[in-house]
């Protein structure tokens, strides 16, 4: 009885074992891939994903086992497993001089042919542009751990897509006995093209302003500049009327010329006098001017040939100067007149005073010929673009005792020329 119970138990146990094994066994998949362990923490970093571009491929992986490594192969395919189909097109991995880090000795060199005994590092077709084959002269022992191989001068495939590089290490120097392997992936894709345009800019304006210094903004930009007249009032032989003139009909304004430009070669500001009866002097309309007489209805220039000179009360003269470059509207860079940090430099003959002092001690000038005369330029500055720097224009005049009465006027035309 006991014997029969034991037999039954054994039979049941056998049937259960057979049942369990019949469930389990078919569900294991055997690859027939004998012996090779998997490279872990593996990646390939490419320096550009642009099709057909030359790039550097940096392979990083961890060797899982300790043992000899004599050669390594890198094979690019369109799939990670199965029959390898080269990405084709412009791909070329068989190029450059690779460098390695982390190995017991970083002495792998590229073999352009990749031949050895059976199992050599070469495609079946004989074309090896999708292979990188590196080997040592003598195999060396490697411990498990992180390694890199940097391969420059690689050429990307032509077509956008995902590609796979199968990496295999070999214990010999002829790619015969595989040790470890793994697959990394990279992607070739089209690029985003970003477009933008910056237009050439020249904002130039002339007007009147009550500002009489180099720091108070005459207006945030040209849209805030207005006026077309500077009235320096009733002249007196005992005085030099210097704008802004508030008494005796004066307009209490200076002139102002503001410039904004992104011209990388700078801007030049010039003026010429409108001619009336062949003269550009401050005069009564229609009067004939000698240029030196103090009895004609013309106010002479401070000096001959448009030179700069001090105006003395009682010696008929009219001219203008630029006492300072106003930085009050500049926002895109540091602009301080007193320290010389501004881009629009005054031309000789129109500098009010030396050493960036806001003053008129150098005198005034006036060119009555009608020819353009440069009064300021940024072409000689380190930074030639100008952001709303403003030239303050101060006008001064005095009469001689013999200067005839009348309403004296003159028109200036200003020009800004930018070179981009």
């Amino acid at each position: 009885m006991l014997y029969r119970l034991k037999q039954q138990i054994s039979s049941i146990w056998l049937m259960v074992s057979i049942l369990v094994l019949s469930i389990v066994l078919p569900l294991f998949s055997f690859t027939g891939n004998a012996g090779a362990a998997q490279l872990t923490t593996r990646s390939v970093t490419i320096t550009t994903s642009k099709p057909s571009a030359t790039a550097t491929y940096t392979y990083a992986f961890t060797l899982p086992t300790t043992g000899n490594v004599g050669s390594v192969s890198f094979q690019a395919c369109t799939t990670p497993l199965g029959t390898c189909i080269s990405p084709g097109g412009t791909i070329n991995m068989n190029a450059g001089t690779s460098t390695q880090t982390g190995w017991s000795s970083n002495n792998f060199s590229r073999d352009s042919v990749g031949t050895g005994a059976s199992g050599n590092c070469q495609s079946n077709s004989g074309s090896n542009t999708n292979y990188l084959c590196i080997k040592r002269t003598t195999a060396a022992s490697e411990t498990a751990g992180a390694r890199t191989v940097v391969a420059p001068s690689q050429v990307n495939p032509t077509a956008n897509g995902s590609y796979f590089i199968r990496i295999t290490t070999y214990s010999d120097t002829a790619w015969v006995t595989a040790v470890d392997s793994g697959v990394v992936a990279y992607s070739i894709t089209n690029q985003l093209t970003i477009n933008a345009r910056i237009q050439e800019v020249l904002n130039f304006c002339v007007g009147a302003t009550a500002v009489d210094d180099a720091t108070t903004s005459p207006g945030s930009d040209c849209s805030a500049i207005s006026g077309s007249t500077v009235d320096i009032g009733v002249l007196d032989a005992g005085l030099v009327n210097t704008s802004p003139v508030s008494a005796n009909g004066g307009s209490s304004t200076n002139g102002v010329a503001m410039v904004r430009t992104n011209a990388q070669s700078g801007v030049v500001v010039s003026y010429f006098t409108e001619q009336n009866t062949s003269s550009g002097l401050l005069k009564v309309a229609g009067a004939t001017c000698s240029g030196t007489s103090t009895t004609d209805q013309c106010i002479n220039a401070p000096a001959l040939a448009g030179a700069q000179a001090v105006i003395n009360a009682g010696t008929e003269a009219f001219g203008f100067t630029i006492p300072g470059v106003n930085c009050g509207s500049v926002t895109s860079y540091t602009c301080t007149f007193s320290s010389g940090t501004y881009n629009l430099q005054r031309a000789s003959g129109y500098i009010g005073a030396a050493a960036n002092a806001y003053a008129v001690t150098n005198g005034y000038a006036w060119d009555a010929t009608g020819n353009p005369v440069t009064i300021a330029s940024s072409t000689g500055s380190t930074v030639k673009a100008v952001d709303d720097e403003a030239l303050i224009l101060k006008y001064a005049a005095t009469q001689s005792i013999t200067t005839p009465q009348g309403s004296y006027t003159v028109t200036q035309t200003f020009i800004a020329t930018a070179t981009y």
Partner: protein
Amino acid sequence: MIYRGVLLRITLLILPALTIIFSVNVDAQQVCSGSYCANEYFFGTGGENELNSTNYTGKAATGSLGVGDTSSTSFTTQAGYVTTQEEYLEMIVNTTNVNLGTLSASSASTGTGTFYVRAYTSTGYFVQTLSPPPSNGAVTLANLTSPTASSVGTEQFGINLVANTSPVAFGANPSQAPDNSFAYGVAASGYDTPNLYKYVAGDTIATSSKGIGRTDYTISYLANASPISRGGEYTVDHVLVVVATF
């Protein structure tokens, strides 16, 4: 008495198989004998890895005890009979041109471009931007080297990968497809704050620490010109590179 003894023996046989299942992950060594290696293990009923005819190969599974993926902070594993061990990485740039128009010192210019990354069996990836800022051939737009808000009238070029409300409403946060249980891509640090923009060539702009799915990204481009920004046509072919670790 008989049946109790039998049950004990069955239990001892089953447990080792269950143990095998939970040790499987994307980085596990294969289990090998002298001639064969087992790549994947499954305990269950009804399935075939390769159903072959002359022209087709298929996989089939019935009665899998568990399917889907499960993740920790840094790892994702696939459970189920029909899984694949093949690595996969794909990045597709959907937009080919982003036109920021005419830059002005009085208003900001913005634009967007999109791309997606799909990875499988990776332990993570990152996306790098490799191009310089837009250039007119002589000068490049001033790039923002740290996350910075838009400043009209100051020359700037920057990007981020999130939804913004300033200077205007534009851009979008990373989107997981089909949902956030499959993919985990995010904007990288420095490019992940709304309304702040940065651009440094070589920076990582998107990352994923795990995941097997697809993340859709939107790049938000910002550009401002100063009053003295040099005139001309500015352009750049924006190169993106994705690197996955398997």
